[in-house]
């Protein structure tokens, strides 16, 4: 199955080239995009099955042995995130096609979307620090161009700060790479894990903190999140939805990967738990102050990142399993919520709470899709968010970390409050006159995501078991090191 691993990146890139070659033939472009993203999803599922059968898929690109060549790794953790991400990429692609005129108005939407897919896939499966930089850049360049699809003054303004912040993070990433290389002489993650053991603890902590800041900007953790609620809401809905669902989670994935693999030996970190608590609290408080559906949801992205970092902060099998479960749930629910927000915007040309209302009477189906997603975000049983948060809280109590558990529960309550604010503003009240009816395809694509979220809740048992096995792999760096260095 190792041949599949490079193809996860190569196929979408080739597809992107193909969409340019077929020119302005919408049907062909759509077909290529669907096939490309569909392939990544299928490959993700196959890799997950293979990885879960006990043998993670490792390949050395170009045939050079591990520390010298570039390694691609799909262990359980990477395969889970890849599968969930590509499923959402698929759903949002269908939504974008159905949104009237979106992809026909912008001829190269599918090209950029496929490049984004390749960047996400590369960032997830790479086992090399510099290759990770390249993966991030591929993903980010596609995201810059996607953000400027509809280039009014508002989009240009939002994109400016987004690009500049991410470029500063990229320059810092290069600095981290330079330091790491001069200290250890290697950039292969598995090799680094071995060599960092021997490095002076002070230097190691400095490297760990630098990496946390670099990936923290991408993941939007406290206090590096301020660019996110500013830039995401202005973009067209499919773009915002996929950014919200994926990009920050790729950042979280890399934080978890590096902190467990390279810097795990120093034990659980109070700093991470503090960051987690602050991210949750400030994100949710920011959300309450907002008056626009997409902006409220953007602040919730920040808040929910805190829960994932909380699971990492425990640095135990159960804590990391809860974090993985939370990522799975969050990618689906967040994408879905933004798609619903997009449906509201599409009908009213605005998502401002004081200018829409009464949607419950006019379009009950949108309300029916919003409700399970919103309750899931807040962590109300029996939805997927409840399972993930329960796992986090249980582990927090077991480890005697009362403060962070209290903060997380308070943040959940406030999340519920701001969801009721959206509900009251958008779905209740006097119906306002709609300008446009959203298309059936958009509603269907959103419905697909809602069903996926319900499936996560329904199969919570097996998924939690899988997450526990994945967490057991990443808690012990020796497993990953053996995979990469032992198998070559």
């Amino acid at each position: 199955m190792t041949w599949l691993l490079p193809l996860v990146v190569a196929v979408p890139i080739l597809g992107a080239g193909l969409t340019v070659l077929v020119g302005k033939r919408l049907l062909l472009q759509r077909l290529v995009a669907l096939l490309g993203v569909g392939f990544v999803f299928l490959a993700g599922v196959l890799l997950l099955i293979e990885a879960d059968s006990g043998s993670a898929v490792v390949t050395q690109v170009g045939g050079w042995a591990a520390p010298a060549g570039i390694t691609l790794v799909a262990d359980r953790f990477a395969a889970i995130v890849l599968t969930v991400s590509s499923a959402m990429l698929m759903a949002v692609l269908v939504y974008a096609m159905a949104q009237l005129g979106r992809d026909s108005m912008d001829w190269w939407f599918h090209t950029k979307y496929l490049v984004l897919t390749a960047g996400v896939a590369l960032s997830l499966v790479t086992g090399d620090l510099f290759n990770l930089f390249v993966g991030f850049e591929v993903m980010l360049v596609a995201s810059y161009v996607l953000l400027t699809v509809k280039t009014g003054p508002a989009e240009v303004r939002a994109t400016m700060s987004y690009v500049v912040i991410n470029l500063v993070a990229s320059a810092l990433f290069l600095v981290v790479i330079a330091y790491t290389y001069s200290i250890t002489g290697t950039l292969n993650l598995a090799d680094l894990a071995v060599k960092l053991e021997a490095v002076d603890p002070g230097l190691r902590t400095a490297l760990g903190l630098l990496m946390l800041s670099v990936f923290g900007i991408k993941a939007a953790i406290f206090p590096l999140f301020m660019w996110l609620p500013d830039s995401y809401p202005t973009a067209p809905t499919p773009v915002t939805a996929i950014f919200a669902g994926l990009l920050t989670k790729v950042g979280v994935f890399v934080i978890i990967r590096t902190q467990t693999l390279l810097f795990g030996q120093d034990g659980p970190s109070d700093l991470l738990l503090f960051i987690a608590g602050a991210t949750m609290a400030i994100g949710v408080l920011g959300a309450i102050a907002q008056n626009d559906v997409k902006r409220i949801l953007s602040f919730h992205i920040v808040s929910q990142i805190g829960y994932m970092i909380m699971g990492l902060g425990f640095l135990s099998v159960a804590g990391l399993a809860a974090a993985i479960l939370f990522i799975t749930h969050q990618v689906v629910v967040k994408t879905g919520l933004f798609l619903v927000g997009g449906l509201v915007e599409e009908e009213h040309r605005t998502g401002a709470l004081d200018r829409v209302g009464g949607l419950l009477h006019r379009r009950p189906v949108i309300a029916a899709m919003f409700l399970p997603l919103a309750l899931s975000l807040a962590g109300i049983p029996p939805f997927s968010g409840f399972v993930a948060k329960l796992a986090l809280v249980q582990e927090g109590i077991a480890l005697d970390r009362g403060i962070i558990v209290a903060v997380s529960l308070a943040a959940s309550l406030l999340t519920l409050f701001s969801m009721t604010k959206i509900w009251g503003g958008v779905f209740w009240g006097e119906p306002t006159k709609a300008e446009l009816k959203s298309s059936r395809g958009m509603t269907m694509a959103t419905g697909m995501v809602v069903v996926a979220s319900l499936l996560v809740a329904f199969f919570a048992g097996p998924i939690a078991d899988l997450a526990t096995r994945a967490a057991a792999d990443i808690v012990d760096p020796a497993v990953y090191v053996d995979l990469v260095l032992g198998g070559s």
Partner: protein
Amino acid sequence: MSLVTLAVAAILFTVGTYLILQRLLTRVIIGLGLVSHGANLLIMLSGGGPADPPVLGAGSTGQIADPLPQAMVLTAIVITFGITAFLLGLALRSFLLTGTDAVEDDIEDRRIARIERASEPLPEPDPEMHEVPT
């Protein structure tokens, strides 16, 4: 030699940081360019001192230079080049649309801050909310 390189990298970072903190996007772009040059110099430094070219049969000192940092710097330069071109395009578009390339504050943020200062219920919806004031 490497102390000089280090000092140059430090100066590039200082000047670059100062420029990034400016409001005009053109200055920010120059600042970003300087900062990434500084980072590239650091990567060059991480490969160790000068030595023979890593080619079979070339050189005589017996010490071979590490070629990897140079490959990485090349990749990084290409990426920075592409993104700088994109940013320049963005600055031009901003100039064409609003007459300036200054990076504005978040509009919705300012609206909420106004509400907070006046501590009154929501004001009349601002028809120009999504326009950048010129």
